[in-house]
């Protein structure tokens, strides 16, 4: 019997027999591994592995995307952003379909190169994502950016949304698998609040199937013992205190703010914006961006999917009007979106 088979056997023996258990992952790459490895079908019937808010593209507010489209239409602007963002649908179309001057980048570094090569233009870096992408954006600010480069920050904080999830009794989470690389930045200690304050076993895991199974075993062990701890089965990568240099640089340039999560709503202290000292670099301030009222996409239940309240297959548009080739909602766009992953594996 190989190690994975052993772990699965262990999961079957540890799972409580008399009730349902819900374990949520909050990372698109975790969901990817779970879905593509076929892990769900090997779990005990009463153990649910639910995907949570692990897709940064999915929660990026419609208003920011519409503003990005508008900015890209200016002749003096080149908008740069990560590839997935170009395809996210809004009431006014996507950046790719409706935008004019835009480029895809794979690293904030490329934003600097584009700014240097187009000194007559204003380069706006539409920077989105959780802690793992915020830190690199903070890093380019620390390294020094050209005067014609501006940041449109749509960064989000993972612990903030997880706190919303635990407070929602409808979801009823019994354990969290904390995201591996977000944890490399924030540290495994960042999740202590969930075990200590909310009594939810939380395990930091990596992206290999075996490591994820190990994480699930540890959550079930805690449930069986009636305890709640924050543990780390990815300790070769994640330190308890995290990457303190990255944290210091992020705090130097960004501050927490109340922000909208698409399909979910406003959550206090859950996003990051540039500090006022750096407002000359802040595209929101320099270009006086106004908030556009978010419109619900008819039929799309992406918000519920992100919160773990519904599986993608519950959506009437899933695999019909909404496909990765022609996404109706944001959760179908990126490889981290639950609908996209489910499309390919269900």
């Amino acid at each position: 019997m190989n190690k994975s088979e052993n772990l699965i056997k262990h999961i079957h023996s540890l799972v409580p027999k008399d009730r349902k258990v819900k374990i949520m992952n909050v990372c698109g790459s975790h969901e990817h591994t779970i879905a593509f490895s076929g892990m769900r079908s090997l779990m005990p019937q009463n153990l649910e592995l639910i995907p949570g808010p692990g897709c940064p593209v999915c929660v990026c507010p419609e208003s920011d995307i519409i503003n990005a489209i508008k900015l890209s239409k200016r002749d003096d602007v080149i908008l740069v952003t990560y590839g997935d963002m170009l395809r996210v649908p809004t009431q006014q179309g996507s950046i790719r379909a409706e935008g004019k001057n835009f480029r895809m980048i794979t690293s904030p570094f490329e934003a600097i190169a584009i700014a240097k090569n187009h000194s007559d233009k204003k380069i706006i870096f539409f920077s989105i994502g959780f802690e793992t992408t915020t830190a690199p954006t903070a890093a380019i600010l620390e390294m020094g950016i050209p005067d014609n480069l501006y940041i449109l920050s749509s960064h989000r904080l993972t612990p903030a949304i997880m706190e919303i999830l635990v407070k929602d009794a409808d979801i009823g989470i019994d354990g969290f698998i904390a995201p591996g690389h977000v944890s490399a930045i924030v540290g495994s200690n960042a999740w202590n609040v969930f075990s200590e304050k909310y009594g939810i076993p939380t395990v930091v895991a990596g992206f290999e199937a075996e490591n994820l199974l190990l994480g699930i075993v540890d959550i079930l062990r805690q449930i069986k013992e009636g305890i709640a701890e924050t543990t780390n089965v990815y300790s070769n990568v994640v330190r308890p205190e995290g990457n303190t240099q990255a944290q210091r640089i992020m705090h130097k340039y960004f501050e927490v703010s109340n922000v909208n999560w698409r399909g979910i709503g406003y959550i206090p202290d859950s996003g990051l914006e540039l500090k006022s000292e750096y407002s000359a670099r802040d595209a929101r301030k320099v270009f006086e961006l106004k908030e556009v009222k978010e419109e619900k996409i008819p039929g799309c239940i992406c918000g519920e999917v992100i919160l773990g309240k519904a599986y993608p297959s519950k959506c009437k548009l899933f695999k019909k009007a909404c496909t990765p080739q022609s996404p109706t909602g944001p959760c179908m766009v990126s490889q981290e979106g639950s609908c996209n992953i489910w499309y390919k594996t269900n």
Partner: protein
Amino acid sequence: MCVGVPMQVVEINYPSGVAEARGVKRNIGLQLLPEGDVNIGDHVIVHVGFAIEKVDEKMADEIWKGFDEIFRLMDEEDEGA
């Protein structure tokens, strides 16, 4: 976009450097790790062009092994679809 890839550092010019994985070289940022902490030959996890953490060689190999497995399964899904 949240995928972190292990790469080996082959050149350092702090706060930048060059790292390599599977024969592909890429300029990377080292600003998120303290100067002097990273040496040539070290393995790092690179996320959107920035090294976010050091890992040992064994861990780097294990992470790649995990990717290979997922890529293989994704290919199978594509062929089946």
